């Protein structure tokens, strides 16, 4: 296989969520001497973008999105250490979790897939994430953004509790806070003092990129 074949196949197999083939092709590409950025930016990310676009249009369904995400994650586990070595700047780091008291994770997982698909490094804390766990993860991973997900009107108040915990830990100004979930609205996000709300996975990616670009422009690193 030529590098072009690898990229084309990698794109196609990611699109249909064939995790074993995606991992094999990733290995094959590396053996051919292809750079990890090439595999990521010229095959995996465009493929996941296409998956996301099809999902948005209603042409793809939840299982298709999940298996494509799983296929990409498998490749990312292989590529991430190599990418770190090359020192390529990541799009951004995103710590994500479903708030305490809430066990819904499908929406959050779809958002994670889209974020990874857009080149973000996503650290998923899972469900039922207590404020102190968010605080600890932010201290450990120094993310650009932290995302709180809630599916219930009764767990949405945890946004405020999380924000208070960040404030108390002196982290509030270091990290962009995004909120989302079925019952969440822009109005509610404003009321609790979050930096941004996004209604769906692709809106999250778009807003996350904008917010990071704005912050990086404002604060010279």
């Amino acid at each position, binding site marked *: 296989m030529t590098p072009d074949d690898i990229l084309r196949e990698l794109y196609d197999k990611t699109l249909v969520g064939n995790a074993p083939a995606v991992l094999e092709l990733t290995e094959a590409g590396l053996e051919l001497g292809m750079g990890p950025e090439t595999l990521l930016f010229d095959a995996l990310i465009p493929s996941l973008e296409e998956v996301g676009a099809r999902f948005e249009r209603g042409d793809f*369904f*939840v*299982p298709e999105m*999940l298996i494509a995400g799983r296929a990409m994650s498998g490749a990312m586990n292989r590529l991430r250490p190599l990418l770190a070595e090359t020192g390529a700047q990541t799009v951004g780091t995103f710590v994500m979790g479903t708030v305490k008291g809430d*066990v819904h994770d*499908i929406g959050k*997982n779809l958002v994670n897939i889209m974020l990874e698909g857009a080149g973000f490094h996503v650290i998923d804390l899972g*469900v*039922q994430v207590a404020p102190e766990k968010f605080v600890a993860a932010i201290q450990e991973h120094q993310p650009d953004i932290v995302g709180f997900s809630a599916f*219930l*009107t*009764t767990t*949405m108040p945890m946004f405020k509790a999380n924000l208070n915990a960040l404030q108390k830990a002196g982290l509030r100004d270091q990290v962009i806070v995004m909120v989302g979930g*079925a*019952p*969440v*609205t822009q*109005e*509610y996000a404003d*009321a609790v003092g979050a930096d941004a709300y996004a209604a769906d996975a692709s809106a999250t990616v778009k807003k996350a990129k904008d917010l990071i670009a704005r912050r990086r422009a404002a604060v010279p690193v």
Partner: protein
Amino acid sequence: MHTVLRSASKQVVIGHDQPFCVIGERINPTGRRIFQQQLRAGDLSAIERDVAAQVAGGADVLDINMGVPLTDEADLLARAITLVQSRTDLPICIDSSVVEALEAGLSVYEGRALVNSITAEDDRMEAILPLVKRYGAAVIALPNDHDEIPMEPEKRLELVDRIVRVATQEYGIPLEDIVIDPLAMPIGADPAVGQAFFETVRGIRDRHGINTTCGAGNNSFGMPGRDQLGASFLPMAIASGLTSAIMDARSPLMVGAVKAADVVMGNDEWGMAWIAAYRATQAAAATT
């Protein structure tokens, strides 16, 4: 075992030897922005329309949820229940995770309500079961705790055992007034959840003989052809022992599947309800 629900004038019995109980689910503003704005402005007219549609579709009980962010949910739920009781004689399932809202709803409700819901968490049981007892209601219980929704049926059944023990022994709730929602999960996110659900429902029936319910739509989340999937899921669950579901009664496919399951299960004796519904459909077709 029979769970008896009542409005001021009507009684509904849930049981393994009874026709399946359809709990109409649409009176819920979650994810409906316009409905939320109306409710926030004190306009409850959309509720009347939703109630009429659920009743026409064949609901036996109505689930009422008024979870609108940034509002006084207790006040809203109490007003909604009073309104619904003035429009229909179906018993009501009072749906909120806010304890004050459940109490406000129970205090204005005429009859014997179904409270939705508690979990296996001690604080939820401690806050809600005394209310259930005081108002003589029945209660839906979910087998999850602070840590997780266990995926293995055996672990869920252990939580059911715990709920049953605590509710009956510590709070004096009659066994027949506990309805377990074994948590139907989306098949699109994990192909194993269908079988696990059926196994849990069977386990609850075999161990405790008590009634069960579920959000019927959960199973098909994220999939195309959701009504068709629901119309398959429900009869399979019924065969495993499911006795009610919170579902959209506006779906003829799902309601039809449930009514057919009643015949097959022997819970629509001699198929009389099935035959009567068939004749009514024919008569309606003949007059148009």
